[in-house]
């Protein structure tokens, strides 16, 4: 309780200082109008053709060490089977609501019912869908919704197989933020390649704490 009292007066004091510093209290109307007046002359729509955008996404994902395979809807299961085999993944976590027709036989899929982190650490990987992908930056966007699940589940396992639908691919970051606006409050993670660091001599090296291996199946 003591803390609350202290920060109450701190709150009043900090706000008072801010108002004194800029000579007045900001009002909502003026703030909204001022925000609307910000010049946004940067690209906000796609400029490339669909084919070029998809190629760009593949190229940018690969540039950041993700492995990408394109597949038709009916082939997702077979492609997934091959990729899981190559990664020697036998036991995979999946979020609730992941399309069951994507899941190949011969692999154990454990549905994430709030699996404790220590247990997530013992599976071979995680397989999810995605909300969207951004071609220009090679980014896959995950949200806490059916088919993508909790953030911990795509973080603790060492391998992530992610299925992205072509209709969810946008070219630029502004297009992506536009699509995400309606669900802005959901837990959202932008993933651009496997976990990496540049902390040692500024060389991008794969793999610190997140999944060290990222495979993408681009469907459609």
């Amino acid at each position, binding site marked *: 309780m003591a803390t609350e009292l202290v*920060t109450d007066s*701190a*709150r009043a004091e*900090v*706000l008072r*200082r*801010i108002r004194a*510093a*800029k000579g007045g*209290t*900001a*009002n909502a109307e003026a*703030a909204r109008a*001022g*925000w609307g*007046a*910000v*010049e946004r*002359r*940067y*690209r906000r729509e796609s400029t490339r053709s669909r084919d070029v955008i998809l190629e760009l996404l593949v190229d*940018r994902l690969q540039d950041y060490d993700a492995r990408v395979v394109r597949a038709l809807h009916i082939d997702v299961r077979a492609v997934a089977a091959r990729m899981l085999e190559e990664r020697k993944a036998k036991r995979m976590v999946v979020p609730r609501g992941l399309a069951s027709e994507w899941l190949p036989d011969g692999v154990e899929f454990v549905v994430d019912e709030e699996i404790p*982190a220590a247990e997530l*650490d013992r599976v071979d990987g995680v397989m999810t869908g995605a909300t969207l992908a*951004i071609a220009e930056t*090679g980014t896959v966007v995950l949200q*806490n919704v059916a088919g993508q699940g909790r*953030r*911990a589940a795509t*973080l*603790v396992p060492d391998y992530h197989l992610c299925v992205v639908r072509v209709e969810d691919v946008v070219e630029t*970051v502004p297009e*992506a*933020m536009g699509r*995400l*606006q309606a669900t*802005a*409050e959901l*837990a*959202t*993670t*932008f993933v*651009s390649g*496997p*976990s*990496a*660091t*540049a*902390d*040692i*001599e*500024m*060389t*991008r*090296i*794969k*793999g*610190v*704490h*997140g999944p060290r291996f990222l495979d993408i199946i681009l469907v459609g």
Partner: protein
Amino acid sequence: MSGTALDPKTAPTFPMAAKTAMGDTQLRKNVRHATDVIQAKRARVVGEMPDWQELREAGKQVRQHTMENLDFYLEEFEANCTRAGGVVHWARDAEEARRIIVELVKASGSEEVIKIKSMTTEEIQLNSALEAAGIHPFETDLAELIIQLGQDRPSHIVVPALHKNRHEIRAIFQREMNLPELGDQPHDLADAARMFLREKFLRVKTGVSGANFLIAETGGVCIVESEGNGRMCLTLPETLIMVAGIDKVIPRYQDLEVLLQLLPRSATGERMNPYTSIWTGVDAADGPRVFHVVLMDNARTEILADEEARQTLNCIRCAACQNACPVYRQTGGHAYGSVYAGPIGAILTPQLQEMHYAQSLPYASSLCGACYEVCPVKINIPEVLIHLRNKVVKQNTAGVAGFFDVEAGAMKAMAMIFRSERRFRAAQRMGRVAESPLVGKDGWIGWLPGLLGGWTQVRDLQEMPKETFRDWWERRGKNGN
């Protein structure tokens, strides 16, 4: 010098510290190498963007607009974050922020915390406060881990251990993690960090972090990182305690479309950093169950009150100005005596000290303008530097004789140049032209001073500096200054 915190109140003046740093050839080599690599990467991915200048302009306007309405956006953030289950605290200064955080950690029932890299926690020297209260902080960012285990200090705001090369890092890990066989390939070192920290991520129940952006519209927070240690600290602990300067707020979710393009390309030269997390409040199944945000002033309102320096607050901490700065590239970060080094440190640090300490930092620049050119939110650092030099001179004309007095006149001339766009460009061009012969001869040493060399450079536009820093320094030393 290792082990002691970077505290502007006790740090030696920049010229003194710079001289020591200049004697460390290994450090200079490491800094040079790292900043070369990062600058080349940045140039490549910035060059890919046909609308980079438009993005910079939008970034500048968004930040400027935020500062003009700061009280409104902070209150909006507070209301929305609270609605989503977060608890918002306010701190007038570092002392108050430390006290709140220590109490919150204690209340969480944990004697250990896992930490995401945060320059704000470095600014308030949080780790020593936690330790004094019997709480053990584990740094989880690779560079911060290197710093913590090596009892070193951060020298760069994005890559705090940039002054260490892989051999030095290996030696630290071998010793501190008890891994005598450890190799020196970067992936060996990354794997060692993964092993070392995994157990802590799974065990420790309280996380402490900074923030990149607080979103007023939603009450959400955005954290930008590379390694996944941030995601670990945000999702696995039960309690998350975040400390953020009041300058970290942004108006709307949509503003991220600008800032998330500017920041990664400027900071690490990547089109996008590996992981960006955006979330709102608490979530028992997917993130912290208890979430505290400490909104800290710590002299930021002083900066806000100074109209000419206010743009300092627009900074998004990308460190592009550090990488581009010929002075920083010579001295490394520690010479600045502050966790904020390089050009941004030269303007931010003395202001955070309300101009009482770190008065030599506004002089730690040759005013070549490279920082302004790369800044993703177009902060005119040279202009602010000159403004602060003026302030320092004014403060010191009350009798303290030093190099400040000598420059009072020159300062006004400089201010004029930087206010006139045309003259500023001419000066900048000269800077560029002068670059090549100097690099060949003495590797920028002629540029280090910013004390006298800097003036000569810009005032006598046709001439090269007549005196190198070394000559100047030696002569100065003899005069007993």
